[in-house]
Protein backbone atom coordinates (compact mmCIF):
# COMPACT_ATOMS: atom_id res chain seq x y z
CA UNK A 1 0.00 0.00 0.00
CA UNK A 2 1.22 3.49 -0.73
CA UNK A 3 2.39 5.61 2.17
CA UNK A 4 0.57 8.84 2.84
CA UNK A 5 2.06 12.30 3.01
CA UNK A 6 1.94 12.28 6.80
CA UNK A 7 3.53 8.83 7.05
CA UNK A 8 6.38 9.79 4.75
CA UNK A 9 6.95 13.04 6.62
CA UNK A 10 7.13 11.14 9.92
CA UNK A 11 9.43 8.43 8.54
CA UNK A 12 11.84 10.98 7.10
CA UNK A 13 12.96 11.95 10.60
CA UNK A 14 14.75 8.62 10.93
CA UNK A 15 16.62 9.01 7.65
CA UNK A 16 19.91 10.83 7.10
CA UNK A 17 19.47 14.19 5.34
CA UNK A 18 19.67 14.05 1.55
CA UNK A 19 21.77 16.81 0.01
CA UNK A 20 20.61 17.62 -3.51
CA UNK A 21 22.12 21.08 -3.93
CA UNK A 22 25.63 20.45 -5.23
CA UNK A 23 25.39 23.38 -7.63
CA UNK A 24 25.18 25.65 -4.58
CA UNK A 25 28.14 24.10 -2.84
CA UNK A 26 29.69 20.74 -2.04
CA UNK A 27 30.94 18.95 1.03
CA UNK A 28 34.77 18.87 0.89
CA UNK A 29 36.15 15.37 0.30
CA UNK A 30 37.60 13.72 3.44
CA UNK A 31 41.05 13.63 1.81
CA UNK A 32 40.75 17.37 1.14
CA UNK A 33 39.76 18.05 4.73
CA UNK A 34 42.80 16.03 5.91
CA UNK A 35 45.07 18.04 3.61
CA UNK A 36 43.68 21.29 4.99
CA UNK A 37 44.02 20.20 8.61
CA UNK A 38 47.61 19.08 8.13
CA UNK A 39 48.70 22.17 6.24
CA UNK A 40 47.05 24.60 8.65
CA UNK A 41 49.06 23.02 11.43
CA UNK A 42 52.34 22.44 9.66
CA UNK A 43 52.72 24.94 6.83
CA UNK A 44 51.51 28.29 7.95
CA UNK A 45 54.41 30.23 6.43
CA UNK A 46 53.95 33.22 4.14
CA UNK A 47 55.20 32.36 0.64
CA UNK A 48 56.79 35.82 0.35
CA UNK A 49 58.93 35.36 3.47
CA UNK A 50 62.68 34.88 3.26
CA UNK A 51 63.22 31.87 5.47
CA UNK A 52 62.51 28.17 5.44
CA UNK A 53 58.83 28.39 6.44
CA UNK A 54 58.27 30.86 3.65
CA UNK A 55 60.16 28.83 1.08
CA UNK A 56 58.20 25.75 2.04
CA UNK A 57 54.91 27.61 1.60
CA UNK A 58 56.03 28.97 -1.77
CA UNK A 59 56.96 25.47 -2.86
CA UNK A 60 53.58 24.12 -1.86
CA UNK A 61 51.83 26.94 -3.68
CA UNK A 62 53.80 26.43 -6.88
CA UNK A 63 53.32 22.70 -6.66
CA UNK A 64 49.55 23.23 -6.39
CA UNK A 65 49.65 25.60 -9.36
CA UNK A 66 51.57 23.06 -11.45
CA UNK A 67 49.17 20.27 -10.55
CA UNK A 68 46.15 22.37 -11.43
CA UNK A 69 47.79 23.45 -14.69
CA UNK A 70 48.39 19.80 -15.53
CA UNK A 71 44.70 19.04 -14.89
CA UNK A 72 43.72 21.76 -17.34
CA UNK A 73 46.53 21.00 -19.77
CA UNK A 74 47.87 24.57 -19.57
CA UNK A 75 51.06 26.26 -18.31
CA UNK A 76 51.43 26.94 -14.58
CA UNK A 77 52.05 30.64 -15.34
CA UNK A 78 48.55 30.75 -16.75
CA UNK A 79 46.94 29.85 -13.41
CA UNK A 80 46.13 32.59 -10.87
CA UNK A 81 44.69 31.96 -7.44
CA UNK A 82 41.77 34.13 -6.34
CA UNK A 83 39.36 34.09 -3.41
CA UNK A 84 36.37 32.69 -5.31
CA UNK A 85 34.63 32.29 -8.64
CA UNK A 86 33.01 35.68 -8.26
CA UNK A 87 36.38 37.38 -7.96
CA UNK A 88 37.67 35.53 -11.02
CA UNK A 89 34.66 36.64 -13.07
CA UNK A 90 35.02 40.23 -11.88
CA UNK A 91 38.74 40.25 -12.56
CA UNK A 92 38.49 38.76 -16.05
CA UNK A 93 35.74 41.14 -17.13
CA UNK A 94 36.68 44.39 -15.42
CA UNK A 95 40.39 43.71 -15.89
CA UNK A 96 39.92 43.24 -19.63
CA UNK A 97 37.71 46.30 -19.88
CA UNK A 98 40.25 48.46 -18.04
CA UNK A 99 43.20 47.22 -20.05
CA UNK A 100 41.51 47.50 -23.45
CA UNK A 101 39.17 50.46 -23.08
CA UNK A 102 41.20 52.50 -25.48
CA UNK A 103 40.71 49.88 -28.17
CA UNK A 104 36.99 49.57 -27.69
CA UNK A 105 34.08 49.65 -25.32
CA UNK A 106 31.84 46.88 -26.55
CA UNK A 107 31.37 43.58 -24.71
CA UNK A 108 29.19 40.59 -25.60
CA UNK A 109 27.65 38.19 -23.11
CA UNK A 110 24.44 36.21 -22.61
CA UNK A 111 21.26 36.74 -20.63
CA UNK A 112 21.81 33.58 -18.57
CA UNK A 113 25.19 34.30 -16.97
CA UNK A 114 25.75 34.11 -13.23
CA UNK A 115 25.28 37.39 -11.35
CA UNK A 116 29.06 37.56 -10.87
CA UNK A 117 29.23 38.18 -14.63
CA UNK A 118 25.99 40.09 -15.16
CA UNK A 119 26.58 42.53 -12.32
CA UNK A 120 30.16 43.10 -13.49
CA UNK A 121 28.71 43.95 -16.90
CA UNK A 122 26.24 46.36 -15.32
CA UNK A 123 29.08 48.05 -13.45
CA UNK A 124 30.89 48.53 -16.76
CA UNK A 125 27.76 49.89 -18.41
CA UNK A 126 27.67 52.56 -15.71
CA UNK A 127 31.23 53.43 -16.78
CA UNK A 128 30.14 53.88 -20.37
CA UNK A 129 30.73 50.43 -21.83
CA UNK A 130 28.22 49.02 -24.25
CA UNK A 131 27.15 45.46 -23.46
CA UNK A 132 25.21 43.17 -25.79
CA UNK A 133 23.24 40.46 -24.00
CA UNK A 134 22.59 37.58 -26.37
CA UNK A 135 19.42 35.53 -26.01
CA UNK A 136 19.54 31.77 -25.70
CA UNK A 137 16.95 29.39 -27.16
CA UNK A 138 14.16 27.81 -25.11
CA UNK A 139 16.52 25.03 -24.05
CA UNK A 140 19.08 27.51 -22.82
CA UNK A 141 21.63 27.08 -25.61
CA UNK A 142 23.41 29.98 -27.30
CA UNK A 143 23.59 29.75 -31.07
CA UNK A 144 27.30 30.54 -31.82
CA UNK A 145 26.44 32.45 -34.99
CA UNK A 146 24.73 35.02 -32.78
CA UNK A 147 28.15 35.87 -31.39
CA UNK A 148 29.53 36.44 -34.89
CA UNK A 149 26.60 38.69 -35.74
CA UNK A 150 27.06 40.71 -32.56
CA UNK A 151 30.80 41.29 -33.04
CA UNK A 152 31.79 44.89 -33.84
CA UNK A 153 35.04 46.68 -34.57
CA UNK A 154 35.09 47.94 -31.01
CA UNK A 155 34.30 44.60 -29.34
CA UNK A 156 36.98 43.78 -26.79
CA UNK A 157 35.52 40.80 -24.96
CA UNK A 158 33.03 37.97 -25.24
CA UNK A 159 31.99 36.24 -22.02
CA UNK A 160 29.87 33.07 -22.23
CA UNK A 161 29.55 30.56 -19.43
CA UNK A 162 30.51 26.97 -20.09
CA UNK A 163 27.72 25.41 -18.04
CA UNK A 164 24.76 27.12 -16.44
CA UNK A 165 24.32 26.89 -12.68
CA UNK A 166 20.53 26.75 -12.75
CA UNK A 167 19.51 24.69 -15.74
CA UNK A 168 22.84 22.96 -16.36
CA UNK A 169 23.00 23.63 -20.11
CA UNK A 170 26.42 23.26 -21.68
CA UNK A 171 27.33 25.88 -24.27
CA UNK A 172 29.22 25.22 -27.51
CA UNK A 173 32.23 27.16 -26.20
CA UNK A 174 34.66 25.62 -28.66
CA UNK A 175 32.73 26.97 -31.64
CA UNK A 176 32.18 30.32 -29.97
CA UNK A 177 35.89 30.39 -29.16
CA UNK A 178 36.94 29.87 -32.76
CA UNK A 179 34.62 32.65 -33.89
CA UNK A 180 36.25 34.95 -31.34
CA UNK A 181 39.74 33.83 -32.39
CA UNK A 182 38.99 34.59 -36.01
CA UNK A 183 37.83 38.06 -35.05
CA UNK A 184 40.75 38.63 -32.69
CA UNK A 185 38.45 39.18 -29.71
CA UNK A 186 39.15 37.75 -26.24
CA UNK A 187 36.86 35.04 -24.92
CA UNK A 188 36.19 34.57 -21.21
CA UNK A 189 34.18 31.60 -20.03
CA UNK A 190 32.80 31.02 -16.55
CA UNK A 191 33.67 27.38 -15.95
CA UNK A 192 32.64 27.31 -12.28
CA UNK A 193 29.96 24.65 -12.73
CA UNK A 194 31.82 22.74 -15.41
CA UNK A 195 35.17 22.02 -13.79
CA UNK A 196 35.36 18.56 -12.28
CA UNK A 197 32.05 17.59 -13.88
CA UNK A 198 32.87 17.59 -17.59
CA UNK A 199 36.20 17.85 -19.48
CA UNK A 200 37.55 21.40 -19.42
CA UNK A 201 40.52 22.22 -21.61
CA UNK A 202 40.92 25.95 -22.24
CA UNK A 203 43.16 25.35 -25.26
CA UNK A 204 40.73 23.03 -26.97
CA UNK A 205 37.90 25.40 -26.11
CA UNK A 206 39.73 28.38 -27.63
CA UNK A 207 39.13 30.26 -24.40
CA UNK A 208 41.49 33.05 -23.33
CA UNK A 209 40.28 33.25 -19.75
CA UNK A 210 38.26 30.92 -17.55
CA UNK A 211 36.93 31.27 -14.00
CA UNK A 212 36.72 28.42 -11.51
CA UNK A 213 35.75 27.99 -7.88
CA UNK A 214 36.92 25.48 -5.26
CA UNK A 215 33.74 24.91 -3.34
CA UNK A 216 31.83 23.56 -6.34
CA UNK A 217 34.27 20.69 -6.67
CA UNK A 218 34.59 19.33 -3.15
CA UNK A 219 37.23 21.83 -1.99
CA UNK A 220 36.55 24.55 0.60
CA UNK A 221 34.91 27.95 0.04
CA UNK A 222 37.32 30.85 -0.25
CA UNK A 223 39.51 29.73 -3.12
CA UNK A 224 39.04 30.32 -6.83
CA UNK A 225 41.07 30.27 -10.01
CA UNK A 226 41.51 32.41 -13.04
CA UNK A 227 43.03 30.79 -16.08
CA UNK A 228 44.56 33.49 -18.27
CA UNK A 229 46.33 32.60 -21.48
CA UNK A 230 49.92 33.78 -21.72
CA UNK A 231 50.10 37.14 -23.44
CA UNK A 232 46.57 38.17 -22.51
CA UNK A 233 46.83 41.51 -20.78
CA UNK A 234 44.32 42.53 -18.14
CA UNK A 235 44.49 45.09 -15.33
CA UNK A 236 44.61 44.19 -11.68
CA UNK A 237 41.42 44.00 -9.69
CA UNK A 238 43.04 43.62 -6.25
CA UNK A 239 45.82 46.14 -5.67
CA UNK A 240 48.40 45.21 -3.10
CA UNK A 241 51.65 43.31 -2.85
CA UNK A 242 53.62 41.56 -5.56
CA UNK A 243 51.85 38.23 -5.22
CA UNK A 244 50.66 36.20 -8.22
CA UNK A 245 53.25 37.76 -10.51
CA UNK A 246 52.20 41.25 -9.39
CA UNK A 247 48.77 40.68 -10.83
CA UNK A 248 46.75 39.98 -7.69
CA UNK A 249 47.67 41.38 -4.30
CA UNK A 250 47.06 39.51 -1.05
CA UNK A 251 48.91 36.82 0.88
CA UNK A 252 48.23 33.59 -0.94
CA UNK A 253 45.87 31.05 0.59
CA UNK A 254 48.40 28.23 0.30
CA UNK A 255 46.36 25.71 2.27
CA UNK A 256 43.28 26.10 0.10
CA UNK A 257 45.34 26.22 -3.09
CA UNK A 258 46.71 22.79 -2.22
CA UNK A 259 43.23 21.64 -1.21
CA UNK A 260 41.90 22.75 -4.58
CA UNK A 261 44.67 20.92 -6.42
CA UNK A 262 43.88 17.77 -4.46
CA UNK A 263 40.12 18.06 -5.04
CA UNK A 264 40.56 18.71 -8.74
CA UNK A 265 42.89 15.75 -9.22
CA UNK A 266 40.44 13.49 -7.43
CA UNK A 267 37.49 14.77 -9.47
CA UNK A 268 39.36 14.19 -12.72
CA UNK A 269 40.44 10.71 -11.67
CA UNK A 270 36.77 9.82 -11.06
CA UNK A 271 35.23 11.89 -13.80
CA UNK A 272 34.52 9.27 -16.40
CA UNK A 273 32.94 6.92 -13.90
CA UNK A 274 31.13 9.63 -11.93
CA UNK A 275 29.81 11.37 -14.98
CA UNK A 276 28.26 8.11 -16.24
CA UNK A 277 26.90 7.30 -12.81
CA UNK A 278 25.41 10.73 -12.17
CA UNK A 279 23.99 10.97 -15.69
CA UNK A 280 22.17 7.69 -15.10
CA UNK A 281 20.84 8.92 -11.75
CA UNK A 282 19.86 12.24 -13.27
CA UNK A 283 17.98 10.65 -16.15
CA UNK A 284 16.18 8.25 -13.82
CA UNK A 285 15.23 11.26 -11.71
CA UNK A 286 14.06 13.30 -14.69
CA UNK A 287 11.98 10.55 -16.24
CA UNK A 288 10.65 9.45 -12.87
CA UNK A 289 9.52 12.93 -11.94
CA UNK A 290 7.86 13.64 -15.28
CA UNK A 291 6.12 10.25 -15.25
CA UNK A 292 4.83 10.59 -11.71
CA UNK A 293 3.88 14.27 -11.56
CA UNK A 294 1.39 15.61 -14.11
CA UNK A 295 1.92 19.06 -15.66
CA UNK A 296 5.70 19.00 -15.20
CA UNK A 297 8.37 20.20 -17.58
CA UNK A 298 12.12 19.81 -17.65
CA UNK A 299 13.97 23.11 -17.92
CA UNK A 300 17.14 23.22 -19.97
CA UNK A 301 18.37 20.81 -22.62
CA UNK A 302 17.54 17.11 -22.26
CA UNK A 303 21.07 15.94 -23.10
CA UNK A 304 23.40 18.95 -23.42
CA UNK A 305 23.40 19.40 -19.68
CA UNK A 306 25.63 18.77 -16.69
CA UNK A 307 25.51 15.16 -15.48
CA UNK A 308 24.30 16.30 -12.07
CA UNK A 309 21.61 18.85 -12.97
CA UNK A 310 17.84 18.49 -13.15
CA UNK A 311 15.52 21.48 -13.18
CA UNK A 312 11.74 21.23 -13.30
CA UNK A 313 8.72 23.47 -13.40
CA UNK A 314 5.55 22.22 -11.72
CA UNK A 315 2.51 24.08 -12.87
CA UNK A 316 0.05 25.69 -10.40
CA UNK A 317 2.43 25.78 -7.43
CA UNK A 318 5.26 27.93 -6.14
CA UNK A 319 8.86 26.90 -5.58
CA UNK A 320 9.61 28.11 -2.09
CA UNK A 321 6.73 26.13 -0.66
CA UNK A 322 8.10 23.03 -2.43
CA UNK A 323 11.50 23.66 -0.83
CA UNK A 324 9.99 24.09 2.63
CA UNK A 325 8.22 20.74 2.45
CA UNK A 326 11.26 19.07 0.92
CA UNK A 327 13.38 20.44 3.76
CA UNK A 328 10.90 19.03 6.25
CA UNK A 329 11.09 15.67 4.45
CA UNK A 330 14.89 15.75 4.72
CA UNK A 331 16.00 17.14 1.34
CA UNK A 332 18.13 20.18 0.49
CA UNK A 333 17.22 21.54 -2.96
CA UNK A 334 16.85 24.96 -4.54
CA UNK A 335 14.38 26.92 -6.65
CA UNK A 336 14.30 29.79 -9.11
CA UNK A 337 11.20 31.19 -7.47
CA UNK A 338 11.23 34.86 -6.55
CA UNK A 339 10.36 33.96 -3.01
CA UNK A 340 13.65 32.20 -2.46
CA UNK A 341 15.62 35.30 -3.32
CA UNK A 342 15.64 38.77 -1.87
CA UNK A 343 14.03 40.21 -4.98
CA UNK A 344 10.51 39.68 -6.21
CA UNK A 345 11.56 38.50 -9.63
CA UNK A 346 11.86 34.86 -10.52
CA UNK A 347 15.20 33.59 -11.83
CA UNK A 348 16.57 35.58 -14.78
CA UNK A 349 17.69 32.31 -16.35
CA UNK A 350 14.22 30.77 -16.35
CA UNK A 351 12.74 33.97 -17.77
CA UNK A 352 15.51 34.03 -20.41
CA UNK A 353 14.52 30.58 -21.67
CA UNK A 354 11.04 31.92 -22.16
CA UNK A 355 9.18 30.63 -19.15
CA UNK A 356 6.27 32.87 -18.21
CA UNK A 357 6.78 34.15 -14.65
CA UNK A 358 3.92 32.04 -13.31
CA UNK A 359 5.77 28.89 -14.48
CA UNK A 360 9.21 30.14 -13.42
CA UNK A 361 7.91 30.63 -9.88
CA UNK A 362 7.15 26.91 -9.67
CA UNK A 363 10.64 25.66 -10.40
CA UNK A 364 12.82 23.19 -8.56
CA UNK A 365 16.53 22.53 -9.08
CA UNK A 366 17.99 19.20 -8.00
CA UNK A 367 21.77 18.89 -8.31
CA UNK A 368 23.46 15.59 -7.54
CA UNK A 369 27.00 14.85 -6.44
CA UNK A 370 29.50 12.13 -5.63
CA UNK A 371 27.55 11.34 -2.47
CA UNK A 372 24.20 10.87 -4.27
CA UNK A 373 22.76 7.38 -4.44
CA UNK A 374 20.09 5.34 -6.18
CA UNK A 375 18.30 4.92 -2.89
CA UNK A 376 18.09 8.68 -2.40
CA UNK A 377 16.45 8.99 -5.81
CA UNK A 378 13.99 6.24 -4.85
CA UNK A 379 12.96 8.18 -1.76
CA UNK A 380 12.71 11.40 -3.69
CA UNK A 381 10.48 9.84 -6.33
CA UNK A 382 8.08 8.82 -3.57
CA UNK A 383 8.12 12.08 -1.63
CA UNK A 384 8.12 14.74 -4.33
CA UNK A 385 4.80 13.66 -5.92
CA UNK A 386 3.14 13.74 -2.48
CA UNK A 387 4.46 17.25 -1.83
CA UNK A 388 3.39 18.58 -5.21
CA UNK A 389 -0.04 17.05 -4.77
CA UNK A 390 -0.38 18.61 -1.31
CA UNK A 391 0.48 22.05 -2.66
CA UNK A 392 -1.81 21.70 -5.66
CA UNK A 393 -4.65 20.87 -3.30
CA UNK A 394 -4.02 24.27 -1.73
CA UNK A 395 -3.70 26.13 -5.02
CA UNK A 396 -6.60 28.21 -6.37
CA UNK A 397 -4.99 27.97 -9.81
CA UNK A 398 -5.22 24.20 -9.69
CA UNK A 399 -8.88 24.25 -8.67
CA UNK A 400 -9.59 26.74 -11.46
CA UNK A 401 -7.85 24.39 -13.87
CA UNK A 402 -9.84 21.43 -12.55
CA UNK A 403 -13.05 23.43 -12.95
CA UNK A 404 -12.10 24.17 -16.53
CA UNK A 405 -11.82 27.93 -16.13
CA UNK A 406 -8.02 28.09 -16.42
CA UNK A 407 -6.00 26.51 -19.22
CA UNK A 408 -2.89 24.53 -18.41
CA UNK A 409 0.41 25.71 -19.88
CA UNK A 410 2.23 22.42 -19.38
CA UNK A 411 0.35 19.39 -20.72
CA UNK A 412 -0.71 16.74 -18.24
CA UNK A 413 1.73 14.17 -19.62
CA UNK A 414 4.62 16.59 -19.08
CA UNK A 415 7.48 17.39 -21.39
CA UNK A 416 11.25 17.18 -21.75
CA UNK A 417 11.33 19.92 -24.34
CA UNK A 418 8.47 22.36 -24.19
CA UNK A 419 8.43 25.88 -25.51
CA UNK A 420 5.73 27.87 -23.75
CA UNK A 421 4.24 30.62 -25.86
CA UNK A 422 2.62 32.78 -23.19
CA UNK A 423 1.26 32.90 -19.68
CA UNK A 424 -2.30 32.67 -18.36
CA UNK A 425 -2.83 36.13 -19.73
CA UNK A 426 -3.49 37.35 -16.22
CA UNK A 427 -4.17 41.02 -16.01
CA UNK A 428 -6.89 43.07 -14.47
Amino acid at each position, binding site marked *: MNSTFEERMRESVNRPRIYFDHAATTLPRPEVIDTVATLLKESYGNPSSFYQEGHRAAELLEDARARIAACLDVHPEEIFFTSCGTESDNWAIKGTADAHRRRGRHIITTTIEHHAVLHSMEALEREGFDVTYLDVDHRGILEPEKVREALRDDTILVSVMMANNEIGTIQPIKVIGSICREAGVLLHSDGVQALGAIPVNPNELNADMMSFSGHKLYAPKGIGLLYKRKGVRIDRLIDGGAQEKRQRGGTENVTYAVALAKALEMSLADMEKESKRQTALRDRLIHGVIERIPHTKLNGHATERLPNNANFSFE*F*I*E*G*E*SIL*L*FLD*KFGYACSSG*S*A*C*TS*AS*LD*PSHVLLAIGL*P*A*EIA*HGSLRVTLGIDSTDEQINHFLIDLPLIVERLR*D*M*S*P*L*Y*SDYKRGVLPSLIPEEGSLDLEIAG*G*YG*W*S*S
Partner: protein
Amino acid sequence: MQYSDKVLDHFMNPRNMGEIEDATTSGTVGNPVCGDIMKMDLKIVDNIIVDAKFKTFGCGSAIATSSMATEMIIGLTTDEALDVTNKAVAEALDGLPPVKMHCSVLAEQAVKKALESYYIREGLMTPERAKKFAILGQCEHEENYEHCGCSDE
Protein backbone atom coordinates in the same frame (compact mmCIF):
# COMPACT_ATOMS: atom_id res chain seq x y z
CA MET B 1 16.03 33.90 5.94
CA GLN B 2 14.34 31.98 8.68
CA TYR B 3 10.63 31.56 9.40
CA SER B 4 9.22 31.49 12.93
CA ASP B 5 7.93 28.18 14.26
CA LYS B 6 4.41 29.58 14.04
CA VAL B 7 4.78 30.36 10.34
CA LEU B 8 6.11 26.88 9.69
CA ASP B 9 3.29 25.34 11.72
CA HIS B 10 0.63 27.23 9.77
CA PHE B 11 2.37 26.34 6.52
CA MET B 12 2.71 22.64 7.29
CA ASN B 13 -0.72 22.35 8.96
CA PRO B 14 -2.84 25.06 7.39
CA ARG B 15 -6.12 25.82 9.17
CA ASN B 16 -9.27 26.28 7.12
CA MET B 17 -7.71 25.35 3.79
CA GLY B 18 -10.25 24.64 1.11
CA GLU B 19 -13.39 26.12 -0.39
CA ILE B 20 -16.87 26.83 0.99
CA GLU B 21 -19.48 25.41 -1.35
CA ASP B 22 -22.20 27.86 -0.32
CA ALA B 23 -19.96 30.81 0.46
CA THR B 24 -21.71 34.10 1.07
CA THR B 25 -18.89 35.94 -0.65
CA SER B 26 -15.35 35.39 -1.82
CA GLY B 27 -12.36 37.44 -2.87
CA THR B 28 -9.31 36.66 -4.97
CA VAL B 29 -6.23 38.86 -4.88
CA GLY B 30 -2.68 38.70 -6.16
CA ASN B 31 -1.38 37.57 -9.48
CA PRO B 32 0.35 34.36 -10.52
CA VAL B 33 2.89 36.46 -12.41
CA CYS B 34 4.02 37.91 -9.08
CA GLY B 35 4.15 34.47 -7.54
CA ASP B 36 1.21 34.62 -5.20
CA ILE B 37 -2.53 34.49 -5.43
CA MET B 38 -5.01 34.07 -2.62
CA LYS B 39 -8.69 33.16 -2.69
CA MET B 40 -10.79 33.68 0.42
CA ASP B 41 -14.32 32.26 0.86
CA LEU B 42 -16.49 33.60 3.67
CA LYS B 43 -19.77 32.36 5.08
CA ILE B 44 -21.59 35.21 6.75
CA VAL B 45 -24.70 34.81 8.91
CA ASP B 46 -26.29 37.86 10.52
CA ASN B 47 -23.18 39.90 9.74
CA ILE B 48 -21.00 37.40 11.56
CA ILE B 49 -18.27 35.46 9.76
CA VAL B 50 -19.18 31.92 10.73
CA ASP B 51 -16.70 30.24 8.42
CA ALA B 52 -13.69 31.17 6.29
CA LYS B 53 -11.63 29.04 3.95
CA PHE B 54 -8.70 29.85 1.71
CA LYS B 55 -6.74 28.54 -1.23
CA THR B 56 -3.33 30.01 -1.90
CA PHE B 57 -0.70 29.72 -4.62
CA GLY B 58 2.45 31.12 -3.14
CA CYS B 59 5.37 30.78 -0.81
CA GLY B 60 5.40 29.54 2.76
CA SER B 61 4.48 32.86 4.28
CA ALA B 62 1.64 33.41 1.81
CA ILE B 63 0.11 30.11 2.87
CA ALA B 64 0.77 30.74 6.58
CA THR B 65 -0.72 34.25 6.54
CA SER B 66 -3.84 32.99 4.74
CA SER B 67 -4.25 30.31 7.34
CA MET B 68 -3.73 32.72 10.24
CA ALA B 69 -6.06 35.31 8.73
CA THR B 70 -8.92 32.80 8.54
CA GLU B 71 -8.38 31.84 12.18
CA MET B 72 -8.45 35.48 13.22
CA ILE B 73 -11.64 36.48 11.44
CA ILE B 74 -13.88 33.50 12.15
CA GLY B 75 -16.39 34.55 14.79
CA LEU B 76 -15.94 38.27 14.16
CA THR B 77 -18.60 40.59 12.81
CA THR B 78 -17.84 41.80 9.31
CA ASP B 79 -17.02 45.25 10.69
CA GLU B 80 -14.63 43.77 13.23
CA ALA B 81 -12.93 41.76 10.48
CA LEU B 82 -12.31 45.00 8.57
CA ASP B 83 -10.06 46.07 11.41
CA VAL B 84 -7.81 43.00 11.22
CA THR B 85 -4.66 44.46 9.70
CA ASN B 86 -1.81 42.78 7.93
CA LYS B 87 0.43 43.79 10.84
CA ALA B 88 -1.85 41.96 13.27
CA VAL B 89 -1.71 38.84 11.11
CA ALA B 90 2.08 39.03 10.91
CA GLU B 91 2.36 39.60 14.67
CA ALA B 92 0.11 36.63 15.38
CA LEU B 93 2.65 34.55 13.42
CA ASP B 94 5.49 35.88 15.61
CA GLY B 95 6.63 38.08 12.77
CA LEU B 96 7.61 37.61 9.13
CA PRO B 97 10.97 38.25 7.45
CA PRO B 98 10.89 41.84 6.06
CA VAL B 99 10.88 40.68 2.42
CA LYS B 100 7.77 38.63 3.20
CA MET B 101 5.63 41.39 4.69
CA HIS B 102 3.84 41.75 1.36
CA CYS B 103 2.35 38.29 1.92
CA SER B 104 0.49 39.57 4.97
CA VAL B 105 -0.77 42.51 2.91
CA LEU B 106 -2.16 39.98 0.48
CA ALA B 107 -4.00 38.18 3.30
CA GLU B 108 -5.59 41.42 4.48
CA GLN B 109 -6.51 42.28 0.90
CA ALA B 110 -8.14 38.88 0.35
CA VAL B 111 -10.43 39.31 3.35
CA LYS B 112 -11.27 42.88 2.35
CA LYS B 113 -11.93 41.95 -1.24
CA ALA B 114 -14.48 39.38 -0.12
CA LEU B 115 -16.08 41.81 2.34
CA GLU B 116 -16.18 44.61 -0.21
CA SER B 117 -18.32 42.64 -2.63
CA TYR B 118 -20.48 41.49 0.27
CA TYR B 119 -21.16 45.06 1.45
CA ILE B 120 -21.82 46.27 -2.06
CA ARG B 121 -24.13 43.41 -2.90
CA GLU B 122 -26.08 43.75 0.34
CA GLY B 123 -26.29 47.52 -0.01
CA LEU B 124 -24.31 47.93 3.19
CA MET B 125 -21.42 49.99 1.87
CA THR B 126 -21.24 53.32 3.71
CA PRO B 127 -18.68 56.11 3.24
CA GLU B 128 -17.33 55.16 6.68
CA ARG B 129 -16.78 51.55 5.63
CA ALA B 130 -15.50 52.45 2.17
CA LYS B 131 -12.48 54.10 3.79
CA LYS B 132 -11.36 50.76 5.13
CA PHE B 133 -10.83 49.36 1.66
CA ALA B 134 -8.01 51.67 0.65
CA ILE B 135 -5.53 48.79 0.85
CA LEU B 136 -7.25 47.11 -2.11
CA GLY B 137 -5.97 49.75 -4.48
CA GLN B 138 -2.41 49.14 -3.42
CA CYS B 139 0.04 46.75 -4.93
CA GLU B 140 1.30 44.58 -2.10
CA HIS B 141 4.66 44.61 -3.82
CA GLU B 142 5.74 48.11 -2.82
CA GLU B 143 6.64 50.84 -5.19
CA ASN B 144 9.82 49.43 -6.75
CA TYR B 145 8.08 46.56 -8.46
CA GLU B 146 7.11 47.98 -11.81
CA HIS B 147 6.06 45.00 -13.86
CA CYS B 148 3.70 43.67 -11.25
CA GLY B 149 0.18 43.87 -12.56
CA CYS B 150 -1.48 43.44 -9.20
CA SER B 151 -2.06 47.12 -8.48
CA ASP B 152 -4.53 47.46 -11.32
CA GLU B 153 -6.60 44.53 -10.12
